[in-house]
């Protein structure tokens, strides 16, 4: 604790505080604009840190990280387009809340629980980092496979009414993830001679296309009315737009979602893009009113935003303790360590202990800055809803197109955006849930890579899947989830319909 206070004292200079403010604001902008991300923000500002001291550099980069992760909720709630893959699940309830005239409340809930989720993840990081890092070294591909397979089994839980359509969408996502070079051996699959497909479809343009372009196509079917819409009388919103009672009522969801976010963030390669979706499903399954999810309730926003922000603390653990980045932004931070002549890993605590605690303090202070900036920003952000739709939507598509291009400066990503937009539109017409597709697309390559690594490691034996304790537990939980889902969504409805037919006869 003394070291943490020491780190905070070293951080509190006028220049550092200004850098953190600017970093959080820029990070939020990058997070809010579909196509841009915290990874990009950190990558862009890395050269700027050449002229700054080590402490100033990390203060700025950490601020960009925090702001970037939190910023995604803005576009997810207001226009149903996630700012990044970390905010996909925020659209499920955040946007319906905005459509119901509760945009301010949705944003307020998102901001506060982003903050609380960040603090949760940071607390775990600060107090448990060395122990968790030692545990992380023992994890092998068997555990990674079991965990990602468990996450895959949740596809059935977000299927909606027709589980077969949900599974179909999920497996379509997995099929798309197999395009390109196979993991491990690099065998080229389903490119049909197209060089651009060698690396498969890039995630961000695919997700933006599936949400942004689809949204436009669904909106444009009817011309926007030229009559001035009479604004509904809204309650005068104070503060964050929700009560203290509602805050306390979300404690269980906060702890569950933040725990999932921290764990998923802590596993290298998993990241916040997975955390928010897994946490959303987990909170839905443990809720007293799971049928209300997707209609616009704060529980959904709490689940998504707590988990994606908690993954920040999770992702920092392997970075600081082992020198292994947990996700994209931490990979950029690893670059920052190298630029400043530092080696991330176990020795970092010994050779540059003050810097480590400064980073901890910066993460905490930036979380507070994020809440303050977004609190005052909400009132301005909500005014964006007053922009006429015929102006807002085309501008959003243009920004999305630029964002999709910006990732690799490759025109192919723009065509990816269009193709996935058409796919998303067709999926909504055929009532195939896009959420399942995205889960399958994100998880498909993770599951395959870890399965193949595990088989190679065991020289072809599948016994480790049944003898390693954590793997057995995770696979058992997966099995239970599958059995329960089959029972609830297939067998019970069949029994009930037979009973109803019998009664009717």
């Amino acid at each position, binding site marked *: 604790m003394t070291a943490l206070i020491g780190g905070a004292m070293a951080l509190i200079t006028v220049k550092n505080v200004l850098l953190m403010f600017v970093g959080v604001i820029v990070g939020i902008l990058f997070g809010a604009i579909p196509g841009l991300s915290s990874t990009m923000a950190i990558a862009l500002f890395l050269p700027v840190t050449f002229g700054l001291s080590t402490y100033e550099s990390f203060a700025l980069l950490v601020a960009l990280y925090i702001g970037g992760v939190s910023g995604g909720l803005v576009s997810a709630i207001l226009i149903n387009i996630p700012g990044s893959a970390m905010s996909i699940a925020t659209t499920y309830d955040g946007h319906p809340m905005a459509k119901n005239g509760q945009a301010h409340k949705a944003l307020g809930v998102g901001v506060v629980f982003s903050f609380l989720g960040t603090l949760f993840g940071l607390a775990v990081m600060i107090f448990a980092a060395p122990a968790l890092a030692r545990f992380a070294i023992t994890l092998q591909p068997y555990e990674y496979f079991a965990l990602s397979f468990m996450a895959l089994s949740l596809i059935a839980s977000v299927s909606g009414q027709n589980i077969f359509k949900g599974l179909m969408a999920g497996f379509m996502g997995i099929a798309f993830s197999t395009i390109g070079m196979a993991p491990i051996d690099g065998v080229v699959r389903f490119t049909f001679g197209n060089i651009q497909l060698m690396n498969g479809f890039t995630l961000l343009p695919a997700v933006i296309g599936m949400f942004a372009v689809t949204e436009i196509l669904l909106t444009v079917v009817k011309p926007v009315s030229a009559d001035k819409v009479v604004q509904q009388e809204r309650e005068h919103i104070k503060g964050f737009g929700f009560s203290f009672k509602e805050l306390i009522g979300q404690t269980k969801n906060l702890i569950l979602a933040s725990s999932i976010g921290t764990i998923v963030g802590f596993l290298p390669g998993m990241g916040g893009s997975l955390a928010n979706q897994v946490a959303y499903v987990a909170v839905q399954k443990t809720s007293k009113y799971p049928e209300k999810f997707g209609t616009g309730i704060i529980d959904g926003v709490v689940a998504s935003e707590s988990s994606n922000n908690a993954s920040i603390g999770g992702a920092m653990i392997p970075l600081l303790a082992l020198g292994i980045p947990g996700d994209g932004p931490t990979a950029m931070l690893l670059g920052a360590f190298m630029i400043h002549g530092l080696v991330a890993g176990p020795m970092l605590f010994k050779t540059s202990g003050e810097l480590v605690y400064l980073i901890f303090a910066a993460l905490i202070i930036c979380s507070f800055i994020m809440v303050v900036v977004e609190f005052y920003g909400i009132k301005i952000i909500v005014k964006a809803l007053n922009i006429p739709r015929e102006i807002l939507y085309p501008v959003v598509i243009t920004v999305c197109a630029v964002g999709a291009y*910006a990732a690799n400066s490759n025109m192919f990503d723009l065509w990816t955006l269009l193709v996935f937009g058409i796919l998303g539109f067709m999926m909504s017409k055929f009532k195939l849930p896009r959420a399942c597709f995205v889960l399958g697309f994100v998880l498909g390559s993770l599951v395959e890579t870890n399965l193949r690594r595990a088989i190679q490691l065991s020289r072809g034996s599948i016994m480790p899947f049944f003898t390693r304790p954590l793997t057995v537990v995770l696979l058992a939980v997966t099995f239970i989830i599958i059995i329960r889902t089959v029972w609830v969504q297939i067998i019970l409805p069949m029994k009930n319909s037979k009973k109803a037919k019998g009664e009717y006869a």
Partner: protein
Amino acid sequence: MTKKIDVFISLIIRGFYTYSDIVLGFIIVAVSAGLYMNTSHLKVSAQSITPMDSAQFVPKLTFGILIFLGIIILLQGVKKIKENKKALPEGEQLIAAIIGFKRATIALTSIALFILLMTRISFIIAAILYLMFNMYFMVERRGWKHKTYFITAVIVSISLYYLFNRFIYVKLPLGFLKGVIG
């Protein structure tokens, strides 16, 4: 000509409403079967120890499951034909569906043209054209605001180009404006 197009679109819409699950199931089964057979031609590298560990395993499993799911959806679709025929859109509903179909096609075409023209006539001009077209297209004719749309389109296009070029170091396509700008 327009009437013939409308009749054609109404046939598609009515067919879709009646047979959507059958069509979906059929497409998934057909495509998955084709790709499943394609997977058999994938190279099995010397690194692979067992079939589970080859580049063929996950695609084969995935397409196999998709074939199974496609058949189930197809059968569900067959069961629902009568029910779907009762709920077909008629009259004004059908007209609205035809208009919606046309509008979605036009919107999609405009995005495709925007992407296509970007490298040829520059991002700035393509974006101005795209923005202006869609602003007029999205709203009823009596709500058109010419000055607002033009100014917004120009400011957004040029600002995006400048911001991304100057601060994010992303060079958006210049097309024939190369040499004129930057």
